[in-house]
């Protein structure tokens, strides 16, 4: 296989801030906490950081100025689009692979973004908001409903994802919600956007995650186990739209997954642990199908009962508790956990001998994923 750009980069360090409900600290402070931790974890100092790539929300200008970093490059800032939340990791890899940068700081900070309606009817939202569709909850539930119709997927099967994530969260001291839930509690939670109830939706928190993407030849100087990028995916073939994709239920995850597997000789059977975006339960189920862990339409039976996706199961998923229970850091906590798992640093929730992990984020047209190895 040709030399891929992602093989010229690795993750040298990671950091996470305090996480939780209404921490009373600004996103910038949290971003700086995570950044300084990640820089130290990589065995570096601020002087070594020569690039920043971020989805925000703490603006990269503010982080750069606070750090006093001298940069060769800053990634274009803002939004999701093709590559989804993880597009900023892809940009960092590209900056390192081209030689423009040597150590890029990537971060995501969040300050309790609620589902409250704030924006006007502009861009693609202009085709949703006039019909009182204000939330991704509804747009994802629309896909889940069709999946139920086409394949017989049930609420109980989606519930297995929520129940399992909560069980995993009990092993994560930083998780926002750690009390176990039963399937009955999931089923009886109030409706949000039917077929989604409250426990199909993730929990907003404050927090930040940072990682350092370094040139592959930094490996001998990494104090911790370096994590490699076996393959990346950020492509999009279908329409950049929440309601116009011809292959509706599979979302852009289909395009991402195909690209991922086209860039590696590894197969789904080689994967030891998956950390997958679960802003809503259905997104995780759909990622499992698209990534090839089961056939199209068989995601429901695959997750049913939760055994297969639990720690100790065939394919442990969202071992940190997911966004459903640990909290919503928009794809970056799941990436952080995938890295910890490969480094053997996941503590009570460590998957024994984890060597290959997937970090997959996003839904609708905004999707991207990474295949990581130790």
């Amino acid at each position, binding site marked *: 296989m040709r030399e891929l750009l992602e093989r010229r980069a690795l993750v040298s360090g990671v950091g996470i801030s305090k996480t939780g409900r209404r921490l009373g600290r600004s996103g910038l402070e949290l971003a700086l906490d995570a950044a300084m931790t990640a820089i130290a974890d990589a065995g570096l100092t601020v002087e070594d950081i020569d690039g920043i790539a971020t989805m925000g929300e703490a603006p990269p200008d503010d982080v750069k100025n606070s750090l006093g970093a001298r940069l060769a490059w800053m990634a274009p800032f803002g939004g999701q689009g093709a590559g989804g939340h993880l597009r900023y990791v892809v940009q960092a890899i590209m900056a390192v692979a081209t030689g423009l940068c040597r150590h890029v700081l990537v971060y995501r900070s969040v300050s309790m973004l609620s589902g409250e309606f704030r924006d006007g009817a502009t861009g693609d939202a202009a085709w949703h*908001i*006039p*019909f*009182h569709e*204000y939330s991704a909850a509804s747009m994802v539930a629309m896909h889940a409903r069709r999946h139920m*119709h086409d394949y017989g997927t049930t609420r109980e099967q989606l519930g297995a994802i929520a129940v399992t994530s909560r069980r995993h969260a009990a092993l994560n001291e930083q998780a926002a919600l750690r009390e176990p839930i039963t399937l009955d509690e999931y089923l009886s939670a109030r*409706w949000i956007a*039917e077929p*989604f109830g409250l426990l199909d939706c993730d929990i907003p928190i404050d927090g930040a995650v940072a990682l350092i993407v370094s040139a592959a030849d930094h490996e001998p100087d990494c104090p911790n186990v370096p994590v490699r990028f076996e393959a990346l995916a950020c492509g999009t073939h279908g329409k950049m739209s929440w309601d116009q994709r*011809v292959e509706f239920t599979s979302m852009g995850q289909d395009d991402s997954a195909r690209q991922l597997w086209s860039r590696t000789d590894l197969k789904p059977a080689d994967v030891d642990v998956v950390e997958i975006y679960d802003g809503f339960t259905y997104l995780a189920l759909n990622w499992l199908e698209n990534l090839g862990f089961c056939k199209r339409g068989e995601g429901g039976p695959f997750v049913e009962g939760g055994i297969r996706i639990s720690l100790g199961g065939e394919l442990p998923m969202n071992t940190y508790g997911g966004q459903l229970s640990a909290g919503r850091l928009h794809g970056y906590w799941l990436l952080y956990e995938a890295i910890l798992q490969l480094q053997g640093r996941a503590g009570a929730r460590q998957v024994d001998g984890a060597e290959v992990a997937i970090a997959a984020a996003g839904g609708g047209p905004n999707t991207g994923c990474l295949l990581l190895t130790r």
Partner: protein
Amino acid sequence: MNEREEPRVLPEITDLNRDFWTSGRDGELRILRCKACRVWCHPPRPMCPECHGRDLSYETTSGKGTIYSYVINHHPWRPGLREPYVISLVELDDQRHLRLTTNIVGCRPEAVFIGMRVAVRFVAQGDFFVPLFIPDDGLRPA
């Protein structure tokens, strides 16, 4: 009639979207269509994604379709809305995969199902005629 009376947040009118949002006074739903290859294009764009034709204009659709998927929204995302209400993806009869996000009105939310036949029904707001859909008793075309 489960009509929503609260003002909808509507987009800015442009040359490209004007007929979609404002031409429904006569009860006809109009969608942009490529004059060269006859493909319907929604949302409207200045270029046909199928043949790259640049000559597109609004044409009258059948105004009928089938519910492709739907959500019953219960959460009060904005004050003043009457939950629950139905948000739906309707596939128009005029072309496969030609879909609109819209609301289903004129029936109880529990009565809605995938495959349900629906017909356009406009609700006026200022200069806008917003296309919603109601259950259609007519026969499905061949």
